[in-house]
């Protein structure tokens, strides 16, 4: 398991290669990259700054990954989230999950992203032509996370 919070860019190919290097039991790697867009809530975004809660961030991400490992049989997981100032087109977050079978890899990868969106202490501030604004939490993200709640 690899969990990183960093300002530097990440390398998807290298991270996925690291999940499979030297092993022949991995049948499926599902991965996700979230990127900064030039448009949000109907207005242009020139840049964004990601703030986080050092210490709690890593703890919250580790808890998400542990929860995923409890729900599915996973071989390895990597989560990298960037902080600091990012421009449109810049990658923000990487989640990659290795497992024997694709169904588990897809489910765990999407679960980690959905929970990260509502549980991990990151906040986005956008620079727009109308000035700076903090991004508001979205009900659709709460709904996405709620799909995974156990009955």
């Amino acid at each position, binding site marked *: 398991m690899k969990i990183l919070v960093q300002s530097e860019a990440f390398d998807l190919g290298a991270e996925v290669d690291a999940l499979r290097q030297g092993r022949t039991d991995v049948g499926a790697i599902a991965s996700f990259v979230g990127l900064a867009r030039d448009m949000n809530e109907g207005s242009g975004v020139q840049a964004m700054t990601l*703030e986080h*809660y050092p210490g709690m961030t890593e*703890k919250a991400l580790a808890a998400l990954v542990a929860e995923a490992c409890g729900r599915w049989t996973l071989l390895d997981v990597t989560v990298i989230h960037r902080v600091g100032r990012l421009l449109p087109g810049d990658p*923000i*977050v990487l989640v990659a999950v290795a497992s024997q079978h694709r169904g588990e890899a897809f489910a765990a990868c999407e679960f980690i*992203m959905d929970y990260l969106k509502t*549980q*991990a202490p990151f*906040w986005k501030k956008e620079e727009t032509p109308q000035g700076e604004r903090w*991004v508001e939490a979205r009900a659709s993200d709460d709904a996405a996370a709620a799909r995974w709640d156990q009955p």
Partner: protein
Amino acid sequence: MKLRVLYFARLRERLGVAEESLDFAGTTAADLVAQLQARGGAWTEELAAGRAFRVAVNQDIVALDARLTDGAEVAIFPPVTGG
């Protein structure tokens, strides 16, 4: 008891403080929120009932009835928006 209280993102900006040490005579997170809200101004407004904010104690998100202990690290912040 003594608490270390942290504020993040929009709340940090609106309240004008990132971190403070605090004497606390109450019991729960709700008591702490009431104590802070009594400061007036942005404190009263941002921490009003019905406003969306989260409280973490020792880096775990908790409900407002969570009991606080001496030396705890309490954080108050808006709903998260990473990813």
